[in-house]
């Protein structure tokens, strides 16, 4: 028996465990190196792999709850909004960049945070008002700022955390987007010492995106800086 045949013999008994993912990591890595130069092992792996891929087919079917679909798609839509913003200068259009260039904020991390509104909670109408159990899944890459929106009956509240202190003369302003048009919420607010900030939002029917920017004191008629938070609202 040649050295190659001997090595093949040694590894062939581990091939089933390998395709099942049941080989210890170090040994799996060694086997992969061997298989790179062993056609017989490669073909055995290729032949056995469909047997492993068939295993999920035998699992008893359990229907996922509809809320799972909502959670997944909310995260995906929020990420798509962020991607579009990065790819095609979405926010430059929102801000009317042709006539007014972006004004990055000094001292404020103008991070784009996308929060999928898994926790876009609809609390019960009872007096406790806390039936939503809101949890927000942050789907963006930016660390730091966390955004959560909670709906209680007709009232929606936007909560931000980990917001850096604003430069003097600046406040936070919320915006909503309906059918691609950005509207001011007319709600100005500031973070507290712990970096938390909250504001009430108006009627949310048809709102696709909620954004927060830093604006001059007194607010603006349209955003003048990049958003520090952007939330896609599940439709």
């Amino acid at each position, binding site marked *: 028996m040649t050295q190659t045949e001997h090595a093949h013999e040694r590894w062939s008994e581990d091939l089933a*465990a390998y395709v099942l993912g049941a080989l210890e990591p170090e040994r799996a890595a060694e086997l992969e190196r061997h298989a790179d130069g062993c056609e017989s092992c490669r073909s055995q792996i290729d032949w056995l792999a469909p047997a492993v891929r*068939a*295993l*999920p087919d035998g699992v*008893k079917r359990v229907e*996922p709850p509809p809320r*799972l679909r909502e*959670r*997944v798609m909310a*995260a995906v839509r929020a990420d798509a909004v962020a991607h579009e913003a990065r790819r095609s200068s979405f926010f430059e259009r929102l801000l009317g960049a042709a006539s007014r260039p972006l004004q990055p904020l000094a001292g404020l991390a103008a991070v784009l945070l996308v929060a999928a509104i898994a926790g876009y909670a609809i609390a019960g109408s009872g007096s406790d008002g806390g039936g939503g159990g809101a949890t927000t899944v942050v789907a963006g890459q930016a660390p730091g700022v966390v955004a959560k929106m909670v709906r209680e009956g007709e009232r929606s509240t936007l909560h931000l955390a980990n917001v850096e202190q604003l430069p003097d003369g600046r406040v936070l302003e919320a915006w909503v987007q309906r059918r691609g048009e950005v509207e001011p919420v007319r709600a100005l607010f500031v973070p507290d010492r712990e970096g938390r900030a909250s504001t009430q939002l108006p009627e949310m029917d048809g709102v696709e995106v909620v954004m927060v920017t830093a604006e001059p004191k007194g607010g603006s008629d349209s955003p003048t800086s990049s958003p520090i938070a952007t939330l896609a609202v599940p439709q």
Partner: protein
Amino acid sequence: MSVRKQRAERLADEELMPLIGEKDPDAFEVFYDRHGGVAYSLAYRIVGERAAAEDVTQEAFISVWRSGARFDQARGSVRSWMLSIVRNRAIDFLRSRAGKAPKLTFDDDAILERRQADELTEEEAMRRETASEVRGAIGVLPVEQSKVIELAYFGGFSQSEIARMLGVPLGTVKGRMRLGLEKIRGELAEGLA
């Protein structure tokens, strides 16, 4: 329903992936509707809890959304790729819950850290193994073969861990795995014939 979504529904999974890679949520919605059920079922089969299965399934689909552009058709179908991600995340969950691998890996190509079989109990192994009925391809096997395959695939145990849990030589586990997979593979081949 949007025109984009109607168009996406007519596409095969492999044709959806480039659209998903371009961050098309309509294409992804179609993909979820096709595979959300089997993904959740697999996650539930492995973790045994609905809430955890939801988390695992969501993580897996978000991973597909973010890495769709990297899908390599030469390595198998989209469905198999997605289910392998679900399985990895579910096994990660089991290990993190057991406190032996607290960090979650988000590299689905990585070989996962293993925990020591000495710290596993036979009871836990059997709970995982019998958590739901054995059906489908694995149902054609003798019980000693189906048991080692179930423990490996649905339980996330290594062959050495399984040997220790069952109190049988490692070579026996290897042989049972091999015979079992070969039999399933043979059944699949017959089905195609």
